[in-house]
């Protein structure tokens, strides 16, 4: 599903807009990354696309539908893992399915599969308050993946994970991206991650924030972590880093 | 104030007045308008009395108030006095406020209840199970040998004529003033059985503890004198008193009603001898009836608690 953001402007209080003049077109199956300084408006932009913010100006389309409320086939990963404390990890992961239909045996199996994907196979019956920070983040990730969405909106999915686990999940995401071809918007503060995972990196900056630069990356189609060490990769990262620094 | 022993309040206060606190069974209502006149005209002060009104909810509360030492004299129904004596209170009945039994049983004309026997198996309303309406209904039933179980007694609250009117009860036990009010509100044609025809219980009396009786006799006589005079005055000048009640009585906003109520109470206060005189024979008959009814377990020797000594000292 394609995403079109048309002249978006967002102001929490009337006078000072946070985002202004945002135009962005994302193809079906494309993965773009949004980077920018802390507090510049990345999450706010994602919330607009997710249909959770009502009072912005301009228009957002997903698959040619004007977004005014959350879209059926879009999954949004919040920046903080929002878990229901009274549900076990497994039941938290099952929540999206539970809201759609009666939960069956195969749904539970699927949930377990998702939990394995994020390395939580042993934590199914723990409760959120018994989970570490990174575990919670992964529960939220499993919960968003279980519906096999067409559009993924990811707000710093891996920021609380150690290098190894992060690497594994990046690989999984690349895999999902290549197999299921969802459209992905990834908000991240990790430039290498952005370059590794996405087709395009969008740099958000300024006050109010607008798209100050876009980087089309034509790296290998079949990417994996090994390209990190390619010269092209290192150069792109350095180039983006510089742009960010001079914002 | 519970620790205040009855006797200890007998010393005179600074202006030489002696305090008399009267515990009533009600708050300040029209029926007791003679007291407001006495207050207004300064008769209490003239008699050396610093008078105070202690409101209450029922004669039982009034009696308890004097037993607890919260008041010196109680304005209460005689049943409450009998029961309190049975429970060990040492009381003296010193003045007969209303020698006449004011209770009655009212039914709608159209239901053709002319004798007590007609009530068998029917719903009968009373104010509450702690009110004189209940006890006097029992007296009525007893007079024809019926028992409580033969009828269906329902406490309907003070608005007890309403269920009579909408047919929820066949008859209701009430008082003369209640009946008057209900008639004013469109009760319509009714049959009335008056309890006084069966047992003419004095409705209300003044009662004190023996302790107060001993220690404050002079003040009590003075108080009773004022009460008697004001009763006399109310009988002679009902119209004037009805006006006074507008201001003083909490239910006195309707002057015409005040006058009617006063007239009814003037009649109840009439005494075949002297105002306030207690007929020992009647009181003993009441006691006997209550023992038969089971309201009293046994005789409480009421004759030793009744005295006309103070009444005889009145002018």
């Amino acid at each position, binding site marked *: 599903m394609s995403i079109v953001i048309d002249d978006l402007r967002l102001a929490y209080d009337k006078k000072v807009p946070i985002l202004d003049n945002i135009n962005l077109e994302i193809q079906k199956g494309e993965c773009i990354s949004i980077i920018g300084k802390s507090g510049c408006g990345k999450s706010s932009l994602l919330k607009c696309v*997710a*249909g*959770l913010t009502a009072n912005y100006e301009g228009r957002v389309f997903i698959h040619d539908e004007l977004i005014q*409320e*959350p879209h*059926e086939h*879009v*999954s*949004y990963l*919040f920046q*903080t893992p*929002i878990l*229901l*404390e*009274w549900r076990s990890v497994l039941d938290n992961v099952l*929540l*999206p399915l*539970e*809201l*759609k239909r009666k939960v069956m045996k195969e749904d539970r199996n699927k949930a377990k599969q998702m939990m394995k994907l994020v390395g939580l196979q042993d934590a199914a019956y723990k*409760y*959120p*308050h018994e989970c570490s920070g990174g575990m919670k983040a992964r529960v939220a990730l499993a919960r968003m993946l279980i519906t096999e969405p067409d559009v993924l909106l990811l707000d710093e999915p891996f920021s609380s994970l150690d290098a190894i686990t992060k690497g594994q999940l990046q690989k999984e995401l690349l895999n999902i991206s290549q197999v299921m071809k969802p459209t992905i918007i990834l908000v991240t503060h990790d430039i290498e991650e952005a370059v590794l995972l996405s087709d395009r990196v969008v740099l958000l900056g300024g006050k109010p924030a607008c798209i100050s630069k876009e980087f089309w990356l034509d790296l290998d189609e079949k990417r994996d972590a090994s390209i990190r060490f390619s010269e092209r990769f290192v150069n792109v990262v350095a180039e983006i880093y510089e742009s960010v620094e001079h914002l | 104030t*519970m*620790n205040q022993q009855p006797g200890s309040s007998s010393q005179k206060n600074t202006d030489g007045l002696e305090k008399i606190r009267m515990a009533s069974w009600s708050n300040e209502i029209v029926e007791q308008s003679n007291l407001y006149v006495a207050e207004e005209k300064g008769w209490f002060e003239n008699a050396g009395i610093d008078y105070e009104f202690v409101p209450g909810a*029922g004669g*039982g509360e009034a*009696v*308890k108030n004097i*037993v*607890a030492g919260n008041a010196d004299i109680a304005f209460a129904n005689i049943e*409450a006095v009998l*029961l*309190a004596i*049975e*429970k*060990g*209170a040492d009381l003296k009945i010193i003045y007969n406020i209303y020698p006449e039994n004011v209770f009655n049983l009212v039914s709608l004309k159209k239901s053709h209840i002319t004798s007590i026997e007609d009530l068998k198996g029917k*719903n009968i309303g009373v104010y*509450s*199970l*702690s*009110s004189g309406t*209940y*006890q006097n209904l029992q007296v009525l039933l007893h007079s024809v040998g019926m028992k409580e179980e033969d009828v269906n*007694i*329902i*406490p*309907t*609250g*003070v*608005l007890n004529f*309403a*269920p009579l009117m*909408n047919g*929820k009860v066949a008859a209701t036990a009430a008082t003369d003033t209640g009946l008057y009010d209900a008639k004013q509100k469109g009760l319509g044609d009714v049959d009335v059985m008056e309890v006084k025809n069966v047992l003419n219980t004095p409705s209300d009396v003044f009662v004190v503890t023996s302790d107060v009786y001993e220690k404050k006799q002079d003040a009590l006589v003075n108080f009773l004198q004022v009460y008697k005079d004001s009763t006399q005055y109310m009988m002679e000048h009902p119209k004037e008193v009805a006006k006074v009640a507008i201001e003083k009585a909490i239910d006195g906003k309707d002057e015409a009603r005040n006058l009617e109520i006063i007239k009814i109470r003037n009649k109840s206060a009439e005494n075949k001898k002297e105002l306030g005189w207690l007929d020992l024979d009647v009181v003993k008959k009441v006691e006997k009836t209550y023992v038969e009814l089971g*309201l009293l377990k046994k005789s409480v020797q009421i004759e030793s608690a009744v005295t006309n000594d103070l009444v005889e000292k009145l002018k």
Partner: protein
Amino acid sequence: MKKHLLYSFFLLVVLLTAWEVVVRIRSIPELILPTPSVILMDIIQLVKSGFIWPHLRVTVIEIIAGFLIGSLVGLLLGVTVSQSSLLNKVLHPYIIASQAMPKLALAPLFVLWFGYGILPKLLIIALICFFPLFESSLTGLRLVDGEKVDLFRSLKASKLQILWKLRIPVAIPYIFSGMKVAIVLSVVGAVVSEFIGASEGLGALIIVAQGSMDTPMIFSSFLLLTAIGVSCYQIMDVLEKKLFKKYTFHRRN
């Protein structure tokens, strides 16, 4: 025996002893304030003779039925009103009005309208006890983390699903706090409702005892009512702890 039970019991003994001693020393007449021992004897007598049972039964049935009706109504109203701010604003004054009305004065009218059966009594109890539950469920249902609501919205949950799977679990401790107040108020309600139009029940017994100046029986009825209230409360407490532990344990601090 647990420590707190011991303390609680000890406090009880101290209070009763103090009561007994004060009454005896100041020789307060039984008519005014009976001693605990007299009251105890009275209760034993009432129980032994079997006189108390029908009254106790009636009152307990009324309390339970009235509480069930009242709390159901309170909960439903709380839930309904929490779902719509307009409905809340429109209905709220009426709900408060129903509370501010003195039920005791309303009771005779209820009897007039609904007869002398159990119906007006249940209505009075329900009317008295639904309000705390309504208020606390309303507050509990509304104060939900905005992010969690956003999560449910992003999952395309319906209003009903948000209510059922988010708001109610979050509100459970507050709902229970309201229920506890409600069950205790039900006891009060039962007594009030029995003051008028009843010839059975502990409330009616109090009135009869007042009428016959039987102060020990007033206190006995009192004590039994109090015991019923305390037991009901404790039952609610145990229920909450047993059945709904998972909704509170991570929050009790």
